[in-house]
């Protein structure tokens, strides 16, 4: 296997492959950075144009757009609090406060390096462990998926902030939004109120753009008269170099990359979840968890290395089993089939140069981020903040509207986006945390569906949830996280009751 791996390296290093990687990565950063435009759409539109070329060129573009957009999504997340892609939601938590504190340059650099590191780790996992990890994918049945979703939901406890009840209400709002539409198990309509539009359910991306991107825009418009940004903080060169970052973040990077890779091999989970779980774990482990959400660069490092580490590993079930882990992976499968390559176990023996070449390309684009992300993109995009608010607000709104419209070609989607924007704005004003909403939308239905599938298969024998070793492992992890969290609460309460509250508390 390693022989074929190295045999494919020259293929990936051909000039036309390299060119497609550079073009793809730059395009990816741009697409990721524009809220609303998403990499799936870009790749779907671009692939038909490459059918005439060598497959390695098409795959180079895909690899570039895919990895580039993961970092690109972080740019508006940090500068404007607007996640460029749904996976960048967790990046806003600390990225934007850093910008307000005048550390935007450091935040962008951290995001760029973290994305690159996550991407490299993930690509290495793809290259060396793919067949092994594919076996893990298959071991996950509905019961295991149920526990993964429950595990993700427990992280709400860490993300809620001060008021637990508000956090739970936010999460439940997300769950209700996720339930709208036809229930795939029974065929019944839920919460559709006789509306044809609601029958299909809400599109995740539209809900997320509305909830997470519109409130910051409204906030920007409100503060138009204040000097909102300090553009001088974006002199990227003023920020300390890579080795310093490495020393500070290597623990976070390795933990988050591991989480990203694990989430990636499970079809259907996604970079979104990887970023939130990584953020969560970083916050839980930190000596100063209270500094998260106020501009702690470790939060960015965790979120960005987590979501980028999801990328290449999501290709594992796709390339080894022919089971696409996400929409981009499905497009890659389509591209391979158009070139007469059948995805699945024989792909590695029948066309090793293409499949291993693609793995190298995933590695190379991740490495390109060090260069392109830092030098070109970051400098360029930081200039955005020099635009007057009166220009920035409408431009961003229009771009988002275009992006949302292209998802389904349906004007109603735009109203839905605006409605969720208002909901998000109200929640923000009432100090409800927004992060649990996305977990509810993603994980509520995932937990429900898989629980019911597991019950269908076992004919309502609930023991199936507890008897399988992987489930037991996840339950153990879940208990550790919950108990340690409770222990912290307990200690904090004990401490505050032991020492009578001082004036400042």
């Amino acid at each position, binding site marked *: 296997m390693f022989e074929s791996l190295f045999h494919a390296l020259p293929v990936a290093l051909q000039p036309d492959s390299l060119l497609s990687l550079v073009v793809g990565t730059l395009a990816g950063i741009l697409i990721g950075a524009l809220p609303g435009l998403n990499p*799936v*759409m870009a*790749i*779907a*539109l671009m692939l*038909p144009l490459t*059918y005439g070329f060598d497959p390695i060129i098409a795959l180079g573009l895909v690899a570039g757009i895919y990895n580039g957009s993961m970092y690109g999504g972080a740019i508006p997340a940090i500068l404007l609090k607007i996640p460029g892609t749904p996976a960048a939601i967790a990046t806003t938590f600390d990225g934007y406060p850093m910008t307000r504190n005048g550390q935007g340059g450091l935040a962008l650099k951290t995001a760029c390096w973290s994305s690159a590191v996550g991407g490299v780790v993930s690509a290495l996992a793809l290259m060396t462990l793919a067949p092994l990890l594919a076996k893990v*994918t*298959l*071991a*996950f*049945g*509905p019961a295991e998926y149920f526990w993964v979703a429950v595990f993700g939901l427990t992280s709400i406890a860490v993300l809620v902030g001060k008021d637990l009840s508000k956090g739970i209400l936010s999460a439940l709002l997300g769950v209700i939004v996720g339930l709208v539409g*036809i229930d*795939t*198990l*029974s*065929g019944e309509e839920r919460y559709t109120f006789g509306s*044809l*539009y609601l*029958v*299909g359910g809400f*599109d995740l991306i539209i809900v997320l753009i509305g909830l997470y991107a519109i409130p910051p825009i409204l906030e920007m418009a409100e503060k138009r008269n204040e000097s909102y940004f300090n553009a001088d903080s974006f002199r990227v060169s003023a920020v300390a170099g890579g080795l310093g970052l490495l020393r500070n973040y290597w623990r976070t990077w390795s933990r988050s990359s591991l989480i990203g890779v694990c989430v990636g091999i499970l*079809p*259907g989970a996604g970079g979104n979840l990887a970023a939130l779980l990584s953020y969560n774990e970083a916050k839980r482990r930190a000596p100063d968890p209270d500094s998260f959400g106020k501009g702690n660069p470790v939060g960015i490092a965790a979120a960005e290395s987590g979501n980028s580490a999801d990328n290449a590993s999501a290709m594992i*079930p796709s390339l080894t*089993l*022919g*089971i*696409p882990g996400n*929409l981009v992976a*499905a*497009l890659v499968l*389509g591209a391979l*089939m*158009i070139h*007469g390559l*059948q*995805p*699945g*176990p*024989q*792909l590695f023996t029948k066309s090793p140069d293409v499949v291993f070449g693609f793995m190298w390309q995933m590695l190379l684009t991740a490495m390109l981020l060090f260069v392109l992300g830092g030098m070109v993109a970051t400098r360029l995009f930081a200039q955005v903040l020099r635009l007057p608010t009166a220009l920035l607000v409408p431009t961003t709104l229009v771009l988002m509207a275009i992006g949302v419209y292209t*998802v*389904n*070609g*349906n004007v109603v989607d735009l109203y839905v986006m605006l409605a969720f924007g208002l909901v998000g704005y109200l929640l923000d004003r009432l100090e409800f945390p927004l992060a649990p909403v996305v977990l509810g939308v993603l994980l509520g239905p995932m937990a429900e569906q898989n629980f019911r*599938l597991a019950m*269908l*298969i076992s*004919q309502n024998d609930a023991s199936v949830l507890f008897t399988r070793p992987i489930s037991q492992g996840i339950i153990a992890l879940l208990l550790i996280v919950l108990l340690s969290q409770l222990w912290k609460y307990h200690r904090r309460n004990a401490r505050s009751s032991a020492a009578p509250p001082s004036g400042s508390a």
Partner: protein
Amino acid sequence: MKQYMLIGALAAATAASTPAMADDYPNRPIEIIVPAPAGGGTDAVARMLNQYLEEELGQSAAVLNVAGGGGAIGVNQLARTKPDGYTLLSTWNSPITTVPHMQRVQYSYDTLTPIISTSQSAYTMCVSPDFPADNGEEFIAELQANPGHYTYGNDGVGGTMRLAAERIFAAFEIDARPIPFGGAGETLQNFLGGHVDIYGGSITPVLPYVEEGQAKCLLVTSAAPNEALPQASGLEELGHPELETVLWRMMLAPEGLDEERATFIADAVERAVQYPEFQEFLAGQGETLNLVRGEALRERLRQESEAIGEVLDNLGLKKH
């Protein structure tokens, strides 16, 4: 002057080759609604066909993805447009023959103009190598002998694969337990992981596992057997060719498109599908050509819609 003559000659040649065309249709770009999101199988086939269709129509054609509601939203949108041949629908069968039984929609096979069907592919049912059956007949017998025992993964309530299976199971009085997944990928994952007993889905994804000996496919949902799966019986062989339920694709237009234009489009599609590149692409997707035009196409839609309505009624899923 020379240029004018050339154009004149070209115009004369075009007129001669399509004598039936009285007007100059198409004289502006055409919009093709695909009722599925960008990047899926339906979208891929539609975009691929579109490349060659543009050449045959002599006009550019833009694909517009209008996803949602199992395809109903896109078809609703088409049904409301002007029947002038400038807005067409490129769809698979479920939004026309299945979805109207389950949801409120603003169209039916009767109120759309049928143009031409293009390609189709059967579904298959596969089991692990140690399953006690080696052909369609034994497979059916094993399922009959063990009611309520075996689980089969499928593409969900109202999914075409599920309906194909239910039709067959009803005819043979089989009681197998359906486990609805999101599609063939998820079904394959759960089948290979041993979480369900039977794979029910399209042929292409499971093919490599058949070649590797990790799966044996014993049934296809078309009347004829499939070359790629020699072990699998077709429905003809099992004595029920009328149960054929497959995935197929077609081009439709809003109600009231005049026949000349419909014929013009059907001719163009018929030429476009003959490009070797397109045929190669179809083969890779496991699909074969099946060209049915005009009223014959409407009849095919009617028959399928009625058969599926009956199955859904038996399953308690028919609402409209």
